[in-house]
């Protein structure tokens, strides 16, 4: 019995045809993700504002506003502002979040990256950093984000941010 081989097309690797692809079960295989997209500096916020106006599947777009006291155990929190003007705490936003995406253009967001990165690591939330930087501009934003972003993307073309978020079903 050990040497039985598949006898039907669909039960062997030859099933990798266009015709057989038609028999793949068709159903939605994922539910909405909770993505938090956070601008770390003013230019990043300006880049994110028109992106936030588009239709998304559960993404919330925010800007880092100020450091706030945390739970009293030495953990700091942060105040965030959404593009419709509302404010919230980082700790609230990260509750139930799947991914925290930090957007930066310079080194002004160093403290913000540290707070968001540490809070996300503590909650085991995936972090990503998206940097808009010209080829000959300094690496400040990259250096700021590197310790806190599991994945870092750097491009001079700010349009890429919306494309990345779309590809990630944000």
């Amino acid at each position, binding site marked *: 019995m050990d040497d039985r081989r598949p006898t039907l097309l669909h039960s062997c690797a030859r099933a*990798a045809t266009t015709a057989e692809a038609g028999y793949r079960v068709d159903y939605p295989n994922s539910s909405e993700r909770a993505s938090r997209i956070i601008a770390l500096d003013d230019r990043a916020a300006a880049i994110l504002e028109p992106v936030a106006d588009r239709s998304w599947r559960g993404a919330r777009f925010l800007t880092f506003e100020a450091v706030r006291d945390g739970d009293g155990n030495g953990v700091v929190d942060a105040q965030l502002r959404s593009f419709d003007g509302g404010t919230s705490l980082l700790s609230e936003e990260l509750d139930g979040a799947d*991914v925290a995406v930090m957007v930066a253009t310079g080194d002004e967001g160093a403290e913000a990256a540290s707070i968001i990165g540490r809070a996300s690591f503590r909650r085991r939330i995936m972090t990503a950093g998206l940097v808009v930087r010209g080829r000959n501009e300094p*690496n400040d934003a990259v250096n700021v984000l590197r310790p806190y972003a599991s994945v*870092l993307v750097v491009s001079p*073309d700010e349009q890429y941010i919306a*494309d990345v978020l779309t590809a*990630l079903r944000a």
Partner: protein
Amino acid sequence: MLRQADNELLTRTGPGTPAGDLFRRYWLPALLSEELPENDCPQVRVKILSERLVAFRDSEGRYGLIDEFCAHRGVSLWFGRNEESGLRCAYHGWKYDVTGQCVDVPSEPEESGFRARIKLRSYPLVEMGGVLWTHLGDPDDRPLMPEWEPFQVAAEQTFTSKRWQESNWLQALEGGIDSSHVSWLHSGGLKNDPLFKGAKGNEYNLADRKPFFEVIDADGGLFIAARRNAEEGKYYWRITPWVLPSFTMIPPRGDHPVHGHFWVPIDDENCWVFTYDYHPTRPLAEKELEAMRAGHGVHNEYEPGTYRPLANKDNDYLMDRAAQQQGESFSGIKGIAMQDSSLQESMGPVVDRTKENLVSTDNGIIMARRKLKKAVVALRDEGEAPPGVDPSHQRVRSASVVLPSDDPWIETTRDVLSVTAGVGHSTV
């Protein structure tokens, strides 16, 4: 996730398609030099970018790549005779030279001039680095010959194989720039493969299976860097360049030869994977060449007399469940190349990317698709020459380095990520 319209845009490369026009801006590997080993040797069928062609080497050593079918009644010239500086159709004796010009129509009087009015489509075919390269685009847009280092070093320093992959070119390319699968699918090879084992970098690879990734936009494509922990206060970086349309170079391991791929669409459901191994400063050792010919490293074994892998979809890739259970290989498939292609082929000829659930570690793939789309659209709408055509974009290298954790690799490795003749790779 990729919209269906964009998936179609990037995966269709036949004549008249936008991505096909993109590929037709580059010199592409068409076949290996070994396939046309001597003057007047048998001709070879070639399909590339959905065009059926025949390649031959005439009595003077000139290479030709012409329409496969005789202009008379559509017979395949593969059945013809390669003789006296031309390819003669086996049906009625019409003969063509390497430019596709008909030079003899035996049934017509020579004085009629009829033959001069018959010409098959032809493309240039140029030997470089053990590979025959062609340009299928408009001659007015023909770029300078490419300057990929693996194909420019001395013959004894380089080796290229090719294999048929039964999937669209894009999912094959995406496997090449998806660094996050290496720690899983290929975890067995680092310890055992003669073309990998022994490098210090392997220890970092195996000790840290959750690397961090950085994707950096470059003039010709992308640099994709994987960061793993090294000794205290240091990171081990592996940096892979991708240059449009489909060239990658895998980061080196110790003093082993450096390898990589060039993927070329055969049609929309098949591609050639040209796989090179080279060393920029020394000849390849005989034992290294033996290992490459035997299918080690990123090469593969073949069905005898073909460029089809020995492990293929007709034999379930010689799946070895015992090896999988015992941890000799993660997937049960032998060899890096077949581990990749078995999974990429299982996705179907053109994977439905609307169903994907990409995650942050897929950002290399996301950015590559974006860069490709941008290039395709800019060429289609503005006639803009795509990245990767300029030879300066082609003079790239991969690197593996250990750096202090606060050292910005982009700046530190700038010099070692481009070719310096006579200097080896930066490698660990």
